[in-house]
């Protein structure tokens, strides 16, 4: 439905769906997914490809279809990622067709020697495929064979595939030479020599391969250790060395040195004991983050103890903001460089206590325009349904107590994790 105006433009390049690469599909396959994969690659209907294989498998084409199919199966990589499922609707039809072809071939003896070769070659391809498919593209073949996991199935596949290949090859030889007694002896002899030769090769190269495998393993472990070490080195370099350099440059300023050391300590602890939650999600993590900010800004220490935890919501973040303001006030006015922060999350109540042993003040003396305490702490708590209490004694210190009732029906985060 293009308007003529647009028609004057050169045709926009319609992005045709990229032609899928030739592979064995897993979703909607009938047998192994070769036919459907081929059909998707060629852009035709799968049933046409399947019928084509069937037709080629008849004695008319000397059983070429069979050989083609098995060969494709052996060499095509399997599709990854799709959920495998089999399309069983066409099963009966193709099973009947296949039986019919076999019946015609065997009963009428229509098959020529070419047909026999086709079948035998197909068996060889089948055996090879069984072995090749063992080797996953993401794993190297050595550990596929030597790996402890699935070693049994690996042996089965190797043995079965090898046997199929051997049968096919011997069959072709027999068909070429003819089944006389002498020729069978010859074949058996050469087979014997082959086995002996293979045994010799295994004897020579077996230990070598085994050693390669061990070496590979130890190399892999070494790489993992190296990565770990590089990780630590990067952290030390980015943070610790940097902080140490700063400390040396600021050595004459004890407050700054303490601030740097404290910040680095916090970073290292975070690195060692991975924080259990993000500051935006959890009450405890948010409080710890706020305490960290105050420590960094004012060069003091905040001893943080959090009991229990809870998911963040607007009320909880108001509580955290009020607690932060209380810590800032203590840092600015108390005159000491150590603050205690204690928070407890009970099912129906959150409480936060910010305490310092500083100069203290007379609460009645707080000027009405002192925005910090009024607006940031008291009003904020009231707006969100909580309460705040400031207790201070001149010379002994100050404690800000914040409480906020919360909905106890909301699952406590600890319970959710714990059960």
């Amino acid at each position, binding site marked *: 439905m293009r308007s003529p105006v647009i028609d004057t433009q050169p045709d926009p390049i319609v992005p045709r769906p990229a032609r899928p690469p030739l592979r064995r599909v897993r979703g909607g396959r009938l047998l192994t997914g070769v036919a459907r994969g081929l059909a998707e690659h060629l852009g035709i209907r799968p049933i046409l490809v399947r019928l084509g294989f069937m037709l080629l498998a008849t004695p008319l084409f000397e059983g070429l279809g069979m050989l083609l199919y098995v060969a494709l199966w052996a060499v095509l990589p399997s599709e990854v990622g799709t959920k495998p499922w089999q399309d069983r609707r066409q099963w009966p039809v193709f099973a009947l067709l296949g039986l019919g072809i076999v019946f015609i071939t065997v009963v009428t003896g229509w098959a020529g020697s070419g047909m026999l070769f086709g079948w035998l070659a197909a068996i060889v391809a089948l055996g090879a495929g069984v072995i090749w498919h063992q080797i996953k593209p993401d794993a190297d073949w050595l550990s596929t064979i030597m790996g402890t996991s699935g070693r049994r199935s690996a042996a089965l596949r190797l043995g079965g595939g090898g046997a199929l290949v051997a049968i096919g090859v011997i069959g072709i030889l027999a068909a070429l030479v003819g089944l006389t007694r002498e020729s069978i002896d010859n074949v058996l002899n050469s087979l014997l020599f082959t086995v002996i030769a293979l045994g010799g090769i295994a004897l020579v190269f077996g230990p070598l391969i085994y050693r390669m495998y061990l070496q590979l393993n130890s190399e892999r472990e070494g790489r993992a250790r190296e990565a770990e070490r590089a990780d630590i080195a990067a952290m030390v370099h980015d943070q610790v060395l940097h902080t140490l350099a700063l400390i040396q440059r600021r050595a004459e300023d004890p407050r700054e040195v303490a601030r740097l050391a404290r910040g680095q300590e916090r970073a290292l602890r975070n690195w060692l*004991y*991975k924080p259990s939650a993000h500051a935006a999600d959890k009450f405890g993590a948010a409080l710890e983050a706020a305490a960290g900010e105050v420590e960094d800004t004012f060069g003091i220490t905040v001893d943080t103890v959090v009991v229990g935890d809870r998911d963040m919501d607007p009320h909880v973040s108001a509580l955290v903001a009020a607690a932060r303001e209380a810590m800032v006030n203590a840092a600015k006015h108390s005159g000491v460089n150590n603050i205690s922060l204690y928070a407890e999350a009970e099912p129906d109540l959150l409480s936060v206590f910010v305490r310092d042993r500083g100069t203290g003040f007379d609460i009645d003396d707080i000027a009405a325009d002192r925005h910090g305490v009024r607006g940031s702490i008291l009003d904020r708590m009231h707006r969100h349904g909580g309460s705040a209490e400031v207790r201070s004694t001149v010379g002994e210190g100050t*404690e800000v107590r914040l409480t906020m009732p919360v909905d106890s029906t909301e699952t406590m985060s600890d319970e959710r994790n714990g059960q």
Partner: protein
Amino acid sequence: MNEVPEQRLRVFLVDDHAMFRAGVRAELGDAVEVIGEAGTVAEAVAMIRTALPDVVLLDVHMPDGGGRAVLEQVRATHPDIRFLALSVSDAAEDVIGLIRGGARGYVTKTIAAGELVDAIRRVAEGDAVFSPRLAGFVLDAFATKNQAPVSDPELDQLTNREREVLRLLARGYAYKEIAKELYISIKTVETHVSNVLRKLQMSNRYELSRWAVDRRIV
């Protein structure tokens, strides 16, 4: 601080950092008598058994098993020697592990000298010493939110009073301040804390061990 020389407490330092031992020794000064120090587990066990100190200041993290190994080996033969854990690690499993191993207290290495001397004295008298963080850990571990059946209510639950005392400890209150706040004597506060320590050491409460491992917050 009464500095009667013959009553000075005999203290032993165990820490694998010689610099830290020297620092503690200097900080403690004349308040206590440091009768020896050791930097390895084997050395510590052997020396403590011969020196028989009143209190051992014990580092948590050391090669060959750490403070826990020293605790277990010494307490097997000398159960009356008292241990105060002193560590930079605030990891719950370390703290709870040492307390369950028999230490009578836990303080962090950043503690002020005066408070450390107080803590040593308290431990020597058979009381318990909880840092705010340890108090928080205990509150968390004994929280009532897990309604798992308790086998022994006497050991597996804290009384309301003990909970109150722990909360104040976690808020950074000193024993004297706690006593004032709750209108009880300092001796009563000490009794409560000692009872909590006993529960912490004796309780088989499943959450205690699980919680300590689960919680990796600093």
